[in-house]
Structure formats: C-alpha cells, structure tokens
C-alpha cells in the first residue's frame, strides 16, 4: 500500500515513516508545499497524511487538488491547529480524518487502518489475530469460537492492541485513545492498568494466555499466537 507523508518537520516525518514502514506500507515523503503538489499530481497513493501548515503554501490547497484529481485517495490531516474550525474546514473539503499534534504513532496507525477499511469496501469487518477474531460491526470478540463478554473500554483496548500488533504501545497512548482529553488532565494512567488487567483475565478464561505482554509496566504488546 502506498502512502505519502506531507510534513515539513523532517524529524516527525522520519518518525512516522519509520514506524509505519515496518507495516506493509510503502512510504514516500514530501517536505514542502511544491514538492507535495508535484507528487500529488504525478503519482497515485492509497493514503496521504497531510500537515495543513506548510511553509510556502496552504495545506488545504493541496487537499483541494487531491480531492479534485484523485478523489479515491484517503486523506488524514495532521495539524498543530487544534481548533474546531480548521478541523471542520478540512473535513468539509474532503479529508477523511483529522489528528491534532502531538499524537501517538500507534494512534496514527489505527486511524490509517480504519480509513483503509472504509475505503476498500471489501468485506473486512473482521480482524483475525491468532486465536481471536474481532467483528467490528457487531463489536464482538470471539476466542476459540466463544464470544467474550467485554466492556466497551476493554473492546477498544483490545482492538487498539491487535491493530498495533508487533508494536509496543505505551500506556499514555492507550490512555489518550480511551479518554481523549480527560486522560492527560489526570496525569495518572493507573486506570489503563486496571482495564488491561480485566481484559487479560477475560482472555485467559477463554484460553488465550499471555496474549498481552506487559513491557516493564509502561507499555503493552499484542502477541499473535
């Protein structure tokens, strides 16, 4: 899958590319407005990550061009502007998602997944990983064929971990994913631990032991078995 990262901050762009390259993405980068315009017009991408604050030009113009010439491309805006207006404007022009800086890379990763699922239209509302399968529409998880009784939070946690399999996900990324703004107000991510513990217990009861590996109490990793 081909992906273009339009971001003028090189260090951030490199982080994104390095994190995503280990997945099945083929990443290209554009650092300037003109570079971005050229690449957008010349090549086809499945997904474009677009920083709307670019030097030399407005990122929203790039978005307009993408939507006009390559409407099938998925676009996720990444922006330092956390204002509702720029978000609404971006989505109005045709962006598929909006992520405010700073964001966690695993969060970006699942946003791309979700976007690709919506774009491909194929019957991929099921995610299989090892012994478990997740039905995204019914919000149902089966382990060895048995339905697990998960709370909404546990379901979200599991999905986040499974979609970031092979990756270690930090506690703060999970906290932010679950609660948005509330988590970092708390400065206390112990609630993540509580929910992970419950989730682990439910998975164990269904015969999936050690699916979630704890990395020194600061991060979690989904082990596909």
């Amino acid at each position: 899958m081909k992906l273009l990262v339009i971001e003028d901050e090189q260090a951030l762009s490199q982080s994104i590319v390095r994190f995503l390259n280990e997945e099945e993405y083929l990443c290209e980068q554009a650092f300037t407005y003109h570079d971005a315009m050229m690449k957008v017009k010349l090549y086809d991408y499945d997904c474009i990550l677009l920083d709307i604050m670019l030097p030399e030009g407005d990122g929203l113009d790039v978005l307009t061009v993408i939507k006009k010439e390559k409407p099938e491309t998925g676009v996720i805006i990444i922006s330092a502007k956390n204002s509702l207006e720029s978000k609404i404007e971006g989505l109005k022009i045709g962006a598929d998602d909006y992520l405010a800086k700073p964001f966690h890379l695993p969060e970006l990763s699942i946003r791309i997944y979700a976007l690709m699922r919506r774009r491909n239209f194929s019957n991929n509302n099921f995610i299989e990983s090892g012994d478990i399968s997740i039905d995204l529409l019914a919000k149902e998880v089966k382990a060895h064929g048995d339905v697990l009784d998960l709370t909404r939070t546990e379901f979200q946690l599991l999905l986040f971990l499974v979609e970031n399999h092979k990756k270690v996900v930090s506690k703060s990324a999970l906290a932010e994913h679950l609660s948005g703004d509330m988590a970092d107000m708390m400065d206390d991510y112990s609630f993540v631990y509580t929910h992970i513990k419950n989730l682990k217990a439910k998975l164990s009861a269904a015969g999936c032991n050690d699916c979630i590996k704890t990395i020194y109490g600061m991060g979690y990793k989904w082990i596909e078995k």
Partner: protein
Amino acid sequence: MRMRSLLNKTLAQYIGCTAILLLLTAPLFYWLTKQYYAEDLADVMEHIRLGIPLPDLDLEEDIVKGVMIQFVMIFSVLSLSLLVTMRFITKKLWKPFDTTLTKIEHFNLEHSKVPNFSSTDIKEFARLNIATQELMSRDKQSYIVQKEFTENASHELQTPIAVFQSKLDLLLQEELTEKQAEIVNELYAVSSRLSRLNKDLLLLAKIDNDQLGEQTRVNAIYAIGKNIALYKELYHKHRVEVISQSSNPLYLNVNVLLFDSLINNLIVNAIRNSPDGSKIEIEIDDNEMTVSNPASGKKLDEKSLFQRFNTSSQGDNKRGNGLGLAIVKAICDYHNWKIEYQFEHNRHVFRIKFS
C-alpha cells in the same frame, strides 16, 4: 489650521469680550458723563460767556460722584467680561480637553478600539491628543502582541512536542533494559505534561482572544451526564454523582467545547483534592451548579485559587499544572457566569451561578 497656544487664545478672547462689552456700554458712559460733569461744566461755561453769576453748584461733589460711578461701571464691565470669558468662552475653549478626558476614561485596553480624537486648533490640546493616541496605540499593540505571543508560542511548540513524543514511541519498539524502560517511562510522563500544559495555554489564549465558535443551547444535565459517562466507565477510584434538584431541565447557551472543558476541569480538580474512594457530587439547581468533594486538606485560598499557575490549591501527590481552575474561571467569565468557592462541612464547594 493655525495653531495657537491656550494662553494666547484665552487672552485674545478676553480682550475681544472686554472690547465688545465696552462698546455695548459706551452709551451708558456717554449718558453718565453728560449727566454729571459735562452738563454742569456746560452750564458754568454758558454762565461765564453770558456774564451772569455762576449758578449754585457743588462741583466737587458732582465730580467725585461721577468719577466714583464711572469707576464702578468700568470695574463692573471688566468683571463681567472676565466672568463671561471664564464661564462660557473658556468652557468652549476647554471642550476638546474635556472630550479627550472622557475618551481616556472610557478606554479599556481589553475591549475597546483606540479612539479617534477630534482635531483642535489649540496647540497644547493637539499635543495632548497626539500623545494620548500614540500611547493608547502602543499599549493596544503590545497588548495584542502579548496575547498573540502565547497563542503563537503554543502553536509553535506543538510540533516539537509531537517530534519528542514520536521518538519515544519509536524508542519503545527497541529492546530496552528495565532501567532504560524506566527512563523512557519518565520521559513519557514529561511529554504528557508538556502536551497538557501547551493545550491549556492554547485554550486560555483562545478564550482571551475570543476566538471560539458560536454558542449553542444545551440541556445542562444531559451535557454533564455525557462527560461523566466516559469518566465513570474508565475511572473507578472516585465516584461521581449527578444530583438534579429541579424538575425542569436547565437549558444553557454555551460553547460546547468550553463547557466540556469546564466540567472536566472541575471533576479533575475535585479528584486531586479528595482522598481515594470519596464521592464527588455535582448538584444542579434551577439556576446554579455546585461541584463538591470531601477535602483531603484544609480550606483553599480563595484569593489565589483562580490565578494562573497557582499551585497552592493542590493536594500533595497529585499536582496539576496550576491552570485547571484558571481555565474554569476564564470559561465562567466568557459566559458571564459567577463562580465562587466555599469550604462547607469539610468539603470543597465550587458554585457556578448561571445568571
């Protein structure tokens, strides 16, 4: 326009006024002169010319009387002209000063524009107007620059924070030793704090700069409930309870983004200042809302409570960045609500009056 100094102008007007009054009173002087000495003198000269004996006149008394009356008249005219100049003409002369003063009195750095001072031909007032206008413009400019600075600084900081956080996410993928992991964990905490601080500063700047979208009418209980729901699901250390005292739903015109922030900040503040396991109550009345929690410490200092970067109000181990209650206050001010803090029955109580 020809500029003249205030003194010259007053003097000129005084002279003009005196001249006019003298001209107007000239017939009176003429009549007086004629009536008292001129008439007697004419009589005396007539008698001398005809060779008849002088009439029986007390010239001395007449002259003294005449001179006295004249003296009083002149004095009255001068006084009158002085009075008129001071009272009416000067008032007109000083009008530009008065206007300027009123404009200065009504000037508010935060809300009003720099006023336009009307032109005047008096040198001192013209100078005053120019100086005042310049001073106001400069103040206003530096106020705007200062306001924008916070917002720009926060925006500029978002990207480096994003870089920092993304590098941590990458570092986490490496094979770390336990000690390294501990350091990374601490860096994550710093990164969250930075990001929180920056978001809070940005929100405050946005409220200060009045850059928020429109207000919508919401059912307060519903809006609060929505915020609490997520909270109840995630966090179990404290209980949050919403109590509605009124049978009527309370509708408020709010900026939804700000209202959510208000509720979240109040709850988080309550959690910080209460022991684990305690109950946080949100009570909604016809016209007000109170958020209260059992105190883990003593009464908070009302004066510094809502100040930015105030850290005196916080529990020992759960320190925030000192902006939470400042944001609460700013949001209340934004909506013209009144907020007060009370310490009742060993509970911290925050009461917001909606009208």
